[in-house]
């Protein structure tokens, strides 16, 4: 059963949590809205992600160039969401695309889609980077400080890539925004900060079992939203 999106949940949300919570409706029990199961459609004649990955596996640099053009903005946004530092995000982005080039042979279409593989790789590298930083600074203070300095990493000029993905982003955000804030927060801390259930429980002063329930319910709702659309296509 879903938890109610009662106002007091907002007290759990720290300044470091960039997921917007204002105006989140209480949709207990409501089905997740439709969301895209994959990236938006490409221009006619453009190679698919899979075709690009296959070309990269055949060591075609032009394919990497195209993949970079298509996804550098999304991957950089993901990295920034984790580490909140522009220069470090650029360095990591470059390393990640080199890893994509070097590890392309390990990609298998049977195990998922290229974007999922790249995001998994980028997230792992970004969280590794975050943990290295935390080794040199007290984690809580550092994260708090960075967030206060850069509370809105989403402000920037629109790019062509952004426009291409804007519809997708809106749909995905819509399903995430239907989750109660406490579920959003738990997922945010787990996915974008790499926190364990225990770390989330400690950070939010919430019982471990409640954190687990929030993660399970939130992830299931998002998963079901994805699946619903995929089944209809």
């Amino acid at each position: 059963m879903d938890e109610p999106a009662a106002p007091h949940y907002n007290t759990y949300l720290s300044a470091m949590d960039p997921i917007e919570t204002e105006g989140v409706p209480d949709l207990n029990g409501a089905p997740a809205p439709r969301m895209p199961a994959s990236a938006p459609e490409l221009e006619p004649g453009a190679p698919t992600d899979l075709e690009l990955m296959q070309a990269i596996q055949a060591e075609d640099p032009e394919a990497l160039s195209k993949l970079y053009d298509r996804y550098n903005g999304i991957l950089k946004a993901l990295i920034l969401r984790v580490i909140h530092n522009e220069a470090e995000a650029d360095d990591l982005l470059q390393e990640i695309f080199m890893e994509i080039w070097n590890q392309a042979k390990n990609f298998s279409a049977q195990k998922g889609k290229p974007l999922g593989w790249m995001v998994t790789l980028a997230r792992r590298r970004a969280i590794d980077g975050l943990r290295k930083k935390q080794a040199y600074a007290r984690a809580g203070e550092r994260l708090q400080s960075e967030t206060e300095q850069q509370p809105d990493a989403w402000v920037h000029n629109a790019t062509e890539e952004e426009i291409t993905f804007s519809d997708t982003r809106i749909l995905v955000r819509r399903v995430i925004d239907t989750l109660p804030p406490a579920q959003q927060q738990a997922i945010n801390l787990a996915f974008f900060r790499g926190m364990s259930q225990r770390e989330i429980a400690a950070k939010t002063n919430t019982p471990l079992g409640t954190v687990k329930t929030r993660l399970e319910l939130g992830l299931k709702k998002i998963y079901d939203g994805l699946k619903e659309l995929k089944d209809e296509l």
Partner: protein
Amino acid sequence: MSFDEFQNRARLYVIGALEPEETGEFEEARKNFGQQAEDFIVECYNLHEAFALSLRPEKSSEALKDRLMSMVRQRQAK
């Protein structure tokens, strides 16, 4: 563990949020459910894609791409 419970754990697993004490039981259930479990885990990785697509793309410099492509070509030339 029922398959419903396995599904809940699998969604935690793909985002790295399984606690150490849950991992053993999860891996055991994964073996027991076999290919059905593997297929479900692959599906769960769509969550990664969805979270990334929920973010507004950030602009990177052309210089960064130039450096990347230069490194790639150097690697190829070796």
